[in-house]
């Protein structure tokens, strides 16, 4: 199996290198406008980021990126078709043109950005590997975990990050690796391990699975950088800009205090030149992006600003209750920062 995997990896890389760079500037937007919807690659199920409700509607933070792009291009956030993709097929689907955007909790790394012929349009969630422990252990920092039994939810780099961290801190640990999140949640609950490690966004989802979620905490340390963001094909800068600025519009809107309820009002009455430029009341900034003048209004009206989207899908307004942390705005101690529209 391992050999099959590595052979496949080599083949994939070879094939990928062969086809990369076929996208032409403007081609994607033209194609999208012609077919009348954005084809969006999402996860095949990740709490808070992309999941389906009982009616079959897709929801989540990653889904909202696609909806924002559709709102910008068509003025209608519902003009999206979703392709649920597994982790293995996601890049192929984007490269082969099956999807226009890949918004699927994908970590921005140099090898993916440069080696796969892709471009990351921004970061819609700053994730990182963390630790979940029972409050009873009385541990308040990952530095106190020497000698702990660690449950690992197998991921692409989870084990490596963990061993790096413990080695760098000169601590010992006993690893137990699980394949699915259900197994690892059960074993933390059963006390088979002292601490569970995975990406923080996953840990919050794990915590809901436990019988008494309030007895567990996610430690403050983050031992790896996992910036997640939407990805597009390299070579079509126009489409890249649209996706990037759809995301920035949401962040800018939050910073300026524009939300889905007041956006239309603001667009008409604002005196603030920054807001006027973003909402198309002043200047022709939509035109540069080949978008309608009120593109940002449509995004904020239909999808909400970044804070609203975060809150609804993963934050305080959701079952996950993830704190803003790194994902707070730059002026509130976080990393979410968007260049200005002007």
């Amino acid at each position: 199996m391992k050999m099959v995997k590595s052979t496949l990896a080599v083949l994939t890389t070879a094939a990928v290198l062969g086809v990369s760079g076929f996208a032409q500037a403007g081609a994607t937007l033209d194609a999208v406008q012609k077919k009348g919807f954005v084809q969006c690659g999402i996860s095949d199920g990740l709490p808070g980021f992309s999941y389906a409700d009982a009616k079959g509607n897709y929801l989540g933070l990653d889904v909202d990126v696609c909806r924002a792009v559709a709102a910008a291009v068509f003025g209608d956030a519902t003009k999206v078709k979703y392709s649920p993709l597994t982790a293995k097929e996601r890049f192929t689907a984007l490269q082969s043109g099956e999807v226009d955007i890949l918004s699927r909790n994908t970590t921005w790394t140099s090898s993916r950005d440069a080696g796969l012929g892709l471009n990351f349009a921004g970061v819609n969630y700053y994730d990182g590997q963390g630790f979940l422990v029972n409050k009873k252990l009385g541990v308040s920092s990952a530095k106190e975990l020497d000698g702990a039994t660690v449950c690992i939810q197998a991921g692409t780099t989870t084990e490596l990050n963990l061993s790096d961290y413990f080695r760098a801190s000169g601590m010992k640990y006993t690893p137990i690796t699980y394949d699915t999140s259900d197994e690892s949640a059960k074993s933390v609950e059963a006390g088979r391990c002292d601490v569970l490690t995975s990406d923080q966004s996953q840990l919050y989802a794990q915590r809901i699975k436990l019988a008494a979620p309030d007895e567990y905490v996610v430690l403050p340390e983050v031992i790896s950088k996992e910036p997640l963001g939407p990805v597009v094909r390299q070579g079509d800068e126009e489409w890249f800009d649209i996706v990037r600025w759809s995301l920035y519009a949401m962040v800018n809107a939050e910073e300026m205090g524009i939300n889905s309820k007041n956006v239309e009002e603001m667009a008409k009455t604002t005196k603030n030149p920054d807001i006027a430029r973003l909402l198309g009341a002043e200047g022709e900034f939509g035109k540069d992006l080949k978008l309608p003048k009120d593109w940002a209004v449509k995004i904020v009206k239909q999808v909400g600003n970044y804070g609203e989207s975060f809150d609804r899908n993963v934050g305080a307004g959701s079952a996950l209750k993830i704190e803003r942390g790194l994902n707070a705005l730059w002026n509130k101690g976080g990393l979410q920062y968007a260049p200005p529209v002007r």
Partner: protein
Amino acid sequence: MQTHTFKPDMPPPVLSVGVLGWLRTNLFSSWFNTLLTLFAVYLVWLIVPPLIQWAFIEADWVGTTRADCTSDGACWVFIQQRFGQFMYGFYPTELRWRVDLTVWMAVIGAAPLFIPQMPRKALYGLCFLVVYPLLAYWLLHGGFFGLSTVPTSRWGGLMLTLVIASVGIAGALPLGIVLALGRRSDMPAIRVLCVTFIEFWRGVPLITVLFMSSVMLPLFLPEGLSFDKLMRALIGVILFQSAYIAEVVRGGLQAIPKGQYEAAAAMGLGYWRMMGLVILPQALKLVIPGIVNTFIALFKDTSLVIIIGLFDLLNSIKQATTDPAWIGMATEGYVFAALIFWIFCFGMSRYSMHLERKLNTGHKR
């Protein structure tokens, strides 16, 4: 003259008849068996009461949200709330009647085939096999004659499982029979071709086939030409399973004595009529268990489409457990999936036993 009257038989010892006798011979015949029995009873006692407790006594049956699941047992509310999605996937709710109709048409259309006295059964069966798939495609997919299109990306749940399984079976059986005949052919070119095909597809795991169809194939196709994902998976499943069916059928062909071939040839039958009228009817009858075995394996293998992001029954359930409103309901979901899979597989195996009894009268000893 004294007539001898037999005394009535003594009743057998109490310990060798009835429940006690049965217990004694079957469960407590030696100290080792006694030990095994006691151990098994202990295991059952360990597993069954908590299971019943969890699944029935302490379970929550009614409600609409997770908050309605207050007791410690299973939360069947989850299954009840998501039942539609488990059955139809993301098929639009207002169009689900089309799926229902497709199933009913299969049931009603196939019913005459099970009536023994039905005249011209073969002809009817053939027509059904030609007409039904077209009708089913029209109903499920739509896009012409007034039905709106439902793209295959919206298909899911049990419906998708059944589509993959039945298309796989319907495609793999004829292809497999042809391959089996080809492998025993006298013509070297055909034989080599069939052997290569069979050995190739038997040599790779299904998961690799699906993976290749979804990850590699799109890269080789010209840009803009995107093949339907379900279609790719179906072709993969058919090619893969036909190789297995071919080997099962070949086993049957080898079991037919040479005399049958010679007798058929002596009657002046050509190759196709010899096979169709004399050899295959006997051979297929012999390999029913093997074929049904392959079908059951195929039905269960459909859940492998999870790795290419198709939402069959199992993946629909997995997907539903990622809804933050229902996180942690995986156990209930998987128990439900197991139950559905078991019902279908058990049904298939019972039907195959019935078929064997009906067709196998000549061979019964």
